[in-house]
């Protein structure tokens, strides 16, 4: 791990200003992903701003009847919150499908959104990776590469990595909004749909945050009701990343929303695909995965996603 200096932030606006001012600075909250990457020297911040003392660890009700989840609410606390379990169970289900108990106790809401991909070639510093070392190439797209876990849609010639979060998939189905503070002290709200960027030619840019800008909360709209489900298919029954995961909110009239994890660089959902929900899983996935460009090794994810949703719809 490279040397770094360390400070504890006491105010969100000051923390954001400081992060913008110090070249090579990063925020640290739970640290469960950042420290892992620092040990491998994939992340090499020169200065860490510890945001754990900022408060931002409460879940409060919004004027619109929804909930505002502080950036530092731990994944365990969020999953266990009585209001989340009752009114947004798809989020609880998504959270407890991810990581291990130890990691969920430490990992934060904001950090979960900002975690990096688990693409094996991103992690292997002996391999080219456009996300880790821009312009070096994509080892995952080379002949014979191991791409079973990687993306099938929203990817590019430069990068086929997926966003690894389960939480974000549940939040996407719920139309969550990310709230931030900028280095100049301004606040803004970004729908989760627009928060993560597709790789295009710049896979190193993963979200719309400006230098120093910090997530302060994630807001959920008023409860939408319906039946909430989250099914995650993986190579191991627990503590493994998704091959495919499906978040489903379904109303009694058959309408609802569907978001996919494990297939794209961001939680994958479209209103056109949602509209097909009354017509069944094949109709939804024909729309949602239209334009998919899987590798030979991960083309099975299209069938797997369709069958997973079909199984969820058949359960009721």
């Amino acid at each position, binding site marked *: 791990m490279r040397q770094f200096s360390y400070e504890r932030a006491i105010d969100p606006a000051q923390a954001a200003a400081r992060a913008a001012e110090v*070249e090579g600075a990063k925020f640290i909250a739970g640290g469960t992903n950042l420290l892992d990457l620092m040990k491998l020297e994939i992340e090499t911040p020169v200065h860490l701003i510890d945001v754990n003392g900022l408060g931002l660890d409460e879940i409060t009700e919004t004027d619109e009847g929804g909930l505002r989840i502080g950036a530092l609410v731990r994944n365990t606390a969020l999953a266990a919150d009585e209001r989340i379990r009752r009114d947004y169970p798809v989020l609880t289900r998504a959270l407890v499908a991810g990581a291990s108990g130890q990691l969920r106790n430490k990992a934060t809401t904001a950090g979960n959104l900002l975690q990096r991909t688990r693409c094996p070639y991103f992690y292997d510093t002996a*391999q080219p990776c456009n996300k880790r070392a821009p312009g070096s190439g994509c080892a995952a797209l080379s002949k014979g590469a191991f791409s079973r876990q990687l993306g099938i849609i929203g990817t590019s010639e430069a990068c086929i990595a997926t966003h690894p979060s389960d939480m974000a998939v549940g939040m996407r189905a719920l139309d969550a909004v990310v709230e931030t503070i900028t280095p100049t002290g301004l606040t803004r709200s970004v729908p989760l749909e627009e928060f993560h960027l597709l790789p295009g030619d710049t896979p190193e840019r993963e979200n719309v945050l400006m230098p120093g800008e910090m997530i302060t909360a994630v807001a959920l709209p008023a409860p939408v009701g319906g039946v909430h489900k989250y099914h995650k298919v993986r190579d191991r029954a627990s503590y493994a990343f998704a091959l495919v995961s499906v978040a489903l909110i379904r109303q009694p009239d058959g309408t609802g929303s569907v978001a996919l994890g494990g297939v794209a660089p961001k939680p994958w959902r479209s209103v056109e695909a949602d509209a097909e929900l009354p017509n069944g899983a094949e109709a939804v996935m024909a729309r949602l995965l239209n334009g998919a460009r899987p590798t030979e090794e991960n083309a099975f994810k299209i069938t797997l996603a369709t069958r997973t949703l079909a199984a969820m719809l058949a359960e009721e």
Partner: protein
Amino acid sequence: MSSPSKAFEPRRRTLLAGNTDLEPGAAQRTAAPVGPETTTITVTVNGTEQELTVDNRTTLLDALREHLQLTGTKKGCDHGQCGACTCTVNGARINSCLSLAVMHDGDAVQTIEGIGMPEALDPMQAAFVEHDGFQCGYCTPGQICSAKAVLEEIAAGVPSHVTGDLTTRIEATEAEIRERMSGNICRCGAYSNILAAITEVAEQQAQGDRA
């Protein structure tokens, strides 16, 4: 022959890490730290307040093992995948390898040494012995720290991936325990006996609650 102090012993891991400038794929950086590279913290470990000055890079795990000589907490993978380093901070189990010591100023840490020693075993430790819940024993401190926290999490109503109804009381079933222990790997494969040990303590606690 006396061995050199742990702090100065060269290790292959350290030597390799020091050479990564040579690797073309490693991230480059131009900026430099803007303040001290060490920090002084006060942390309460197993009930005793400790003041430590550590390199900012020191993990909580290394602070416990190398600075406080509390070597019960084990380093397995050092990447949060195996759970051997599990201890509790302010009551919550975490991977101590994925947390910086400097982030724990003012915190209360409990390690396996604080749970119980051979002359006075905690019920969970006694159950692991009784059920032969280990073979080589390397993962055991982490398994025990995790197992105690698992039963507390169930009692506190924290749901898991296998929890059915999210709105009712959660029972400490075998399925619940298995799922919640998935962050602790045992390469000897003592899982069935670990499960038996935890189940016994869960039953003891349930009987205690009823009595």
